[in-house]
């Protein structure tokens, strides 16, 4: 069996004193793609934000280990440097911060922490242009402020661009497919597929199964009421698409 990348055990978390996650168990090994599906309010985004270390998401019980280490003890930047990447559901607009400047600072922060030399401006530019081209992104987006005035699809591409630069060990995609038309969905999914390797893992959180037509998961989980109610393979996603979530809820009691 390949290396354990993520081990979530009995994870409970609350937001504004309201319990959202109520005992999540999930194990992801190197090279695997896991899809987490579930109805609105089931805790999907909370799970993503807890993994990334967002303020306001309070873990009340359980543990999360990333490559054997306590992930919850790390700051958001330490998680990023260790190889966890969250593709945001709503990427933040940051006026006044150049997209290219930001991505270079980010990549070099991660590289430095890994003992690699920082890239200079010329090498970085060559790299980012190549990655942007793969994502069919206009280079003009590199010179604009981070996400400012980007359309929904452009923001998501920009997330995947950052992911492809940082080459994380674990990529968490928080509804990356929402708001994308079918062409953009294909480009974004291909960007993620390009990153797939025996060393990398993906946790794709989604409301719809259409992303999974392009990004084929090894495992599918259904999150209901803050717990994984059912796990299966790719066919589970198709079944959910056809039958909805009510039968899983009924099965889970």
């Amino acid at each position, binding site marked *: 069996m390949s290396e354990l990348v993520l081990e979530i055990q009995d994870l409970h978390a609350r937001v504004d004193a309201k319990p959202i996650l109520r005992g999540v168990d999930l194990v992801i090994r190197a090279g695997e793609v896991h899809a987490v599906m579930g109805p609105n309010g089931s805790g999907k985004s909370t799970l993503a934000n807890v993994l990334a270390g967002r303020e306001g998401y309070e873990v009340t019980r359980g543990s999360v280990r990333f490559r054997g280490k306590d992930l919850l003890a790390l700051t958001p*930047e330490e998680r990023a440097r260790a190889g966890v*990447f969250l593709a945001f559901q709503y990427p*933040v607009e*940051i006026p*006044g911060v150049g997209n290219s400047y*930001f991505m270079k600072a980010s990549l070099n*922060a991660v590289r430095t922490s890994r003992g690699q030399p920082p890239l200079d401006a010329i090498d970085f530019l060559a790299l980012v242009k190549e990655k942007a081209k793969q994502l069919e992104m206009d280079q003009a987006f590199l010179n604009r*402020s981070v996400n400012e005035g980007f359309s929904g699809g452009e923001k998501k591409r920009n997330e995947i661009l*950052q992911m492809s630069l*940082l080459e994380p060990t674990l990529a968490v995609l928080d509804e990356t497919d929402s708001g994308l038309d079918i062409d953009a969905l294909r480009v974004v999914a291909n960007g993620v597929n390009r990153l797939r390797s025996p060393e990398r893992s993906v946790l794709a959180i989604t409301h719809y199964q259409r992303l999974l037509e392009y990004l084929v998961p090894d495992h599918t989980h259904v999150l209901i009421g803050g717990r994984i109610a059912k796990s299966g393979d790719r066919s589970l996603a198709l079944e959910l698409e056809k039958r909805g979530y009510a039968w899983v809820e009924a099965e889970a009691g």
Partner: protein
Amino acid sequence: MSTSAAEAAFRKALEAPRPAEPARVETLRAEARQAFLAQGLPTTRHEDWRFTPLAKLDKIELGSPELVVTLPKNLPAGCTIAPLPSDSERSSLGVCGDPKRRPFEALNMALFDRGWQISIAPGTKLEQPIELWFDPRHGASHVRVVVEAGAGSRAVIVERHAGSGHAALINAVTELCVRRDAELSHVLVQELPESSLGFLTVLARQDAGSRLALHSIALGAALARVEVEARLEGEDASAELDGLYLGRGTQHQDHHTTIDHAMPRTRSRELFKGILDGRAHGVFHGRIHVRPDAQKIDAAQTNRALLLADGAVVDSKPQLEIYADDVKCSHGASVGQLDSDALFYLRSRGLGEPEARALLTSAFASEVLEKLPASELRAHIEKDLLGWLGGAR
């Protein structure tokens, strides 16, 4: 020394005998002396000084002034610098301003012993900025600059106040006479030591079709008051004022602006941004005055402040006095903290918290810095800003 002691010191300086000067100058000095004696130093009971107490005057030894001035070495063709006061017919000294309303302007006119008039010949377009550097080292220095920007000329003046670490006071008044269709950019850079005080006044009179851009960058001083008055006295004249003020520790940064729309179809824009840390105090008072019959006015004013610490304070006071009816006038003010979503976004990409905060803070400032006319100067100020951000915590 309390402020009353400071006032006594100024009064004493006003009584000291002066060498004989040209009649016109002596008249200006006498009027200014009377104006100061009549009003004295302002207190916070004075509406224009409500948010700026002058208690920090007691930290400064006001006697034995020492001021190092660096003037531009090579003047381009069409540009001259002549010392003030002068009895020359062409001197524009005292053309702008009103000492009765501004005690430090009055003190300056009565007491300045160093000054220069920069004249730009009509039609001259200068490529390089003209830079003046004032380094007050001790005591209270009063210095005056008059800029005579001839019709159709174009120039950038950089007035820099930066010192080498002594507690001193500088009271500088700059008069800008912007003639018909001239384009003048004035950059006021205040990087005084954090033990010093700065009273920096810029008074502009603009003829028809002229354009003034005033950029104020205030980083230093224990207390600094930048006072700007732009009088739009010709049709189609426009004034654009912007500023960036930074404060940390117990620094006090005050900007007090007045735009006088005296003629129809004049336009003004103001954008001021403050970044305040520690227990710093920022003040922005923006007065827009539209005179009767000055129709088709277009004026907009914005002041935004970023507070990096709980103890930092900003007072923002727009003051619109509109006596014409066909005008477009807007103002807006906001005070806030760094956006926590943006902070998390940057950190989730591996940037450390201090680095992420510095990046967002300089992004807030960039809107003002982008307006600076000289790229070399902008790079210099950006570097100073990053240094400031590194030391702000």
